């Protein structure tokens, strides 16, 4: 195992130097920059963030093999986890998808009308897919989880349903990569196309981490709770 796990006593700056992608986590947790030489624990405490949860998510991001332990998962702050996931959703839509859409529009201006139309239509389709994926989580899955956490369990839903249908929304993103890279001809806006590709690659990576968090932390947490109710 090449990547080592992050710990609460590491300096936060050191953690970010090891994996700068973790910067993305800070705003989602409502944590600011300017942490000086504070450790992860100190900065989490100061920001009112569960250090356990923050580290768990950092480790899921950074280490592909990392699987949080069962007892550890049972004790996570699920309200904070859900708040984190919701803020991530917002960030993807308002920030990342919006940026990609903007660049795609700019590039489309140099294309024949038909090509522009179909590209826009394609992206619109992808965006709607992402939106409905997020909406399903926020309207059905998260409320269910919060219900389960406080002890009332609606009979008509199980996290298993989510687990099995937690489909990839990244097929189309991958398609878009190939469309732009391999099939969108013309020399105009070459630089912008490259920037766009960088945006797509990095969004894809971040989204895959996002679903890892759901699969490795959220789902096991709920399964555990459900099992407990089943026994009662």
């Amino acid at each position, binding site marked *: *195992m090449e990547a080592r796990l992050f710990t609460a006593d590491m300096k936060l700056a050191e953690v970010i130097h090891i994996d700068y992608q973790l910067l993305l986590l800070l705003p989602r947790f409502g944590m600011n920059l300017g942490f000086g030489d504070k450790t992860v624990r100190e900065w989490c405490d100061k920001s009112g963030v569960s250090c356990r949860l923050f580290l768990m998510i950092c480790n899921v991001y950074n280490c*592909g*093999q990392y*699987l949080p332990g069962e007892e550890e998962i049972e004790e996570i702050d699920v309200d904070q986890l859900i708040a984190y996931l919701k803020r991530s959703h917002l960030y993807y839509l308002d920030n990342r998808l919006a940026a990609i859409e903007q660049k795609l529009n700019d590039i489309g201006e140099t294309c024949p009308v*038909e*090509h522009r*139309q*179909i*590209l826009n*239509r*394609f992206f619109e*389709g*992808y965006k709607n897919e992402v939106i409905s994926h997020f909406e399903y989580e926020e309207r059905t899955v998260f409320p269910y989880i919060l219900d389960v956490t406080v002890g009332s369990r609606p009979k008509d839903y199980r996290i298993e349903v989510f687990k*099995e249908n937690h489909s990839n929304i990244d*097929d*189309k993103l*991958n*398609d*878009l*990569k*190939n*469309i732009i890279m*391999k*099939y*969108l*001809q013309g020399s105009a806006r070459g630089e912008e196309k490259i920037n766009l590709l960088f945006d797509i690659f990095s969004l*894809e990576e971040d989204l*895959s981490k996002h*679903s*890892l968090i759901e*699969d490795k932390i959220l789902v096991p947490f709920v399964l555990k709770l459900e099992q407990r109710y089943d026994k009662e």
Partner: protein
Amino acid sequence: MTKSSRHYRVVIVEPSIIISTGLKYLIELKKEFEVSAIIADYYHYTEKINHLLPDVIIINPSVVDVKKRQHLEEIFTELKETAFIALIYQYIEPEVVKQFHAVIDISDDGERIAQKLLHAIDAVNAPPDAAEKNELSDREKEVLIALARGKINKEIAEMYHISVHTVITHRKNIIRKTGIKSISGLTVYAILNNLISINDVE
């Protein structure tokens, strides 16, 4: 085994670190093998594995989602010359095992494992179809256009008097060659390549 001077890249997909580390050690005793990645689940790393283009993937079949009955070739669309080896130390449905080119048993020694890997690599590379280009054949183009127009497999099969199975094979080839999976993505491809006009897909 003709290419003994070659270096073969191996990817191990195995959730147990104890086992994957031991396996890596045994495999790398042989100079011709190099374990380029150890991965706990293929789910979130399919892309990565596809990019590594390994010669061999050793998978613990219990990580493959049996419920969805996914075939390995559907998961690793990019890997046409990769040998798939199952690593077995618990009960696995025979149907799942059938997809693999060879099976490593937990009691195999290094020598035996190396032998199995080399045999599987040779078997996979046997048909010399290096001439294959990534251009779509005319038949594939027809299927692509029909898909972009919203036709389903069964309709396409009837249109061209071919079996649904053949349509599916065409679709797999189209996906492999273009790198585009979704129907809407293929529609974009068809229009960018002037195979159809946007009015055809309204």
